[in-house]
């Protein structure tokens, strides 16, 4: 039996996930817990109930016992809400199933000069699934968006299958990295060292989180790591907290945007997205 992967979204026509217009596959599960994460439903590697409070009229129909096998884990009926307030984030599927779905768009993506991007969550959390997808998606332009938090073996094995890498660098300081993302950045930095020498096409991605990552100290340090390589700076998403309530979590950062300043000046070769 081929290993199943779990994804929480397939988004069509993504415009910031690599060259050309793309389809982005969001793989579920992430080893990091970045406090600014705007996809909280991508954090755990298990299917999860999403409750859209703004659509809910508290009619209680979803609490009526339904007997559906698929509803059992959630204690709610997933088929009871006419307003669509309940859904599941996390669909388990084999690489072959996913590849088949994506094949349906091959000609369009080629016409547009785009491709497929694996994002997440952290796609390197499900390396076998992603690897097998890549095998089955020959002919597509493939990209991956990753934190880089994986063993060198996993990292190199997957990255070698990709045409393009969007490699995050969030915080250069190990202590700060642990504090804000929950993990050590040493494995990430090691993988980045390899990436720079690998000959693969890549771009660095830096999320600008006010007062956390967008400080001159951090950006200067990241610029040192990035060198002459291209860096894409991503302004703080002030709506980042929007989905937390849906998964019963609380967003702890504010909704103030970045300061109005030219963040590219810290870098040799950076653009704002």
């Amino acid at each position, binding site marked *: 039996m081929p290993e199943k992967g779990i994804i929480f979204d397939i988004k*069509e026509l993504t415009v910031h996930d690599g060259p050309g217009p793309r389809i982005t596959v969001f793989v579920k599960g992430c080893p990091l817990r970045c406090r600014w994460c705007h996809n909280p439903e991508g954090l755990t590697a298990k299917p999860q109930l999403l409750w859209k409070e703004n659509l809910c009229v508290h009619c209680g129909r979803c609490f009526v016992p339904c007997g559906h096998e698929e509803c059992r884990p959630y204690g709610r009926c997933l088929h009871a809400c*006419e307003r669509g307030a309940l859904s599941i984030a996390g669909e388990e599927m084999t690489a072959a199933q996913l590849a088949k779905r994506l094949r349906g768009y091959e000609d369009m993506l080629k016409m547009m000069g785009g491709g497929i991007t694996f994002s997440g969550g952290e796609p390197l959390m499900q390396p076998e699934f992603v690897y097998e997808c890549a095998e089955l998606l020959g002919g597509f332009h493939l990209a991956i968006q990753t934190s880089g938090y994986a063993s060198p073996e996993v990292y190199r094995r997957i990255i070698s299958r990709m045409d393009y890498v969007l490699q995050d660098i969030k915080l250069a300081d190990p202590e700060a990295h642990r504090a804000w993302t929950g993990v050590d950045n040493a494995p990430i930095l090691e993988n980045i060292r390899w990436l720079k020498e690998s000959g693969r096409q890549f771009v660095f991605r830096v999320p600008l989180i006010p007062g956390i990552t967008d400080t001159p100290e951090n950006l200067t340090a990241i610029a040192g790591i990035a060198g002459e390589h291209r860096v894409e700076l991503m302004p703080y998403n002030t709506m980042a907290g929007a989905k937390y309530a849906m998964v019963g979590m609380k967003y702890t950062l504010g909704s103030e945007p970045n300061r109005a300043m030219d963040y590219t000046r810290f870098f040799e070769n950076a653009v704002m997205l």
Partner: protein
Amino acid sequence: MSEYLRRYIVDKKHHQFRKDHPELEHLAERFAGEELSPKERMTRRFELAASLEEPVLLPEEQICFMRTVKKLPDCFTQDEWDEIKKHHFIHELGYMSNLSPNYERVIAGGLLAEREKADEYGVRIIDAILDLTERYRRKAMEEGREDIAQVLARVPAYGATNFREALQSFRIIHYSLWLEGDYHVTTGRFDKYMYPYLKADMDRGLYTRESALELLEDFFLSFNKDSDLYPGVQQGDNGQSMVLGGIDENGRPVFNLLSELCLEASRHLMLIDPKINLRVDKNTPLRIYELGSELTKAGLGFPQYSNDDVVIKGLEKLGYEHKDACDYVVAACWEFIIPKVGADVANIAALSFPKVVDVCLHRDLESCDTFEAFMDCIREEIGRECDEICGGIQDLWFVPSPLMNIMIDGGVYDGAKYNNFGIHGTGIATAADSLAVISKYVYDEKRFDAKTLIEAVDSDFAEHGELLPLLRNEAPKMGNNEDLPDSLGVDLLGSFAASLKGRKNCRGGIYRAGTGTAMYYLWHADQIGASPDGRRAGEPFGTNFSASLFARINGPLSVVRSFTKPDFTDSINGGPLTMEFAASMFRDPDSVSKVAALVKAFIDMGGHQMQLNAVNSELLRDAQIHPEEHRQLVVRIWGWSAYFVELDRAYQDHVLARQQYVV
């Protein structure tokens, strides 16, 4: 452009010159008392209105002529209309509309040359235009605006000799057609017939790109001076469409510097007129789509794209001559018509697909053993609906317009070279989704029976309410690239086209099937109750050729895939796939280029027509609460753009209900 002039018009300061005239009161009664012929009435009304017009030159404008006569009275009394309608089919207001006049000929040759060939009414109207022009010229002399006076000494009496004269001549003729009472007067292939004037002037060194753009913007402003006086379903629905690009009859691309300047002028002015359309084909370079997407980003709902590869072939299949088909333009919204020689009535009626489903649901479903048998009933019912629609259009009559008669080659009083009728096809996704529910759940899976479904629909889901989540949220929907609903959509459209094929209309023309809805997305939706797709009573259909409003759609690629499945060469009356993108999608140039690539893919895959909107919902919601703060906020409605705050609530809500794609 003069920003001062733009503000002047945006702030409606020019409205101060408008007047009501007692001379125009009870005009129809007086005409009736004298038992005047329709042509005599049209001519007299024009002469009277033109004589009441007062020349006004706005500060800093280069292109003049605007309405000061506020309201144009009807030429016929209500009793007379009632009598006329006993004997004739009257389309909309009864006056000529949705035509694309031969500006090219008249700008080049001048009105005096036309006067030689015109009938007595045409002669009188031309004289009235020239008289008003002369009064404008004298006014310009008085005010020391000699450049304007000089232009008016030449046009429109004589042929234009340069770009500015050509623009001014256009303006006067366009203004006059509206003053005659014609409406939805379109501008045709503007970049094709105007470019030679600009090019000659630039070759002579008279204009740079910048100064040409400035003049063009001044000219574009003129479309916005009187447009609130024009008739339409809502403010903004005035049909001043402009078509750019495309191929000529030899297959060569037309897109030129003027096309580019028009896209730019529209983007700078941020006004709802003229409404920009861009003709493209499989050879159109991405760069042109990128220029188009730059304009989309501005949020005006322009440009609307149409695919020459499909439209020309489709029109030829309907019997249009190759050179005419190659010259196609759009009418007020998206209906494909032929400029200069055509008198098609491209929006004469509409077929409601969901109504067909509703009729068969109640009449046939319980007695059909197979879904295929039910689909036969659907196809037959479409035929019957077409019988009824076409049978009801007999003895079509328009109020004869002497000036429009001059502007269409060979005249237009009793039709012209092409006299075909276009029928919209509305609610296709609602109908296809409803059929998908019947196919999947009633016949294949037997989850519920016909009686249950009918009871649910008839009670607006008060009964069997448990079906609603399934039907609304889990049933297959057109737009998700699923075979079942998509193929049913293809079937419906194909049956519609086949039903109209071979029918002759009362003017000797044929019928054309289309994919537009116009305002029927509200009107037809109110004619039926709920539908089997889980649509509740009172919920509108999608706009034109689009997914159902509440359908959960995978994304733009699936939509494009689903909505390029039909062979549009058999149903080419017009009606675009409409998609709304969050304004944030257009943040950087790279993203704009990627949206352009999607449009190009749609065209390359055989889509016929597409229209994209950059929407900022938060702004729209705020505008509903604080209209006074958002007077200039523009949205696309069904084939035209409007100032959001000037719309009725139902149309505002429809825009907000459409699914938006975000980054």
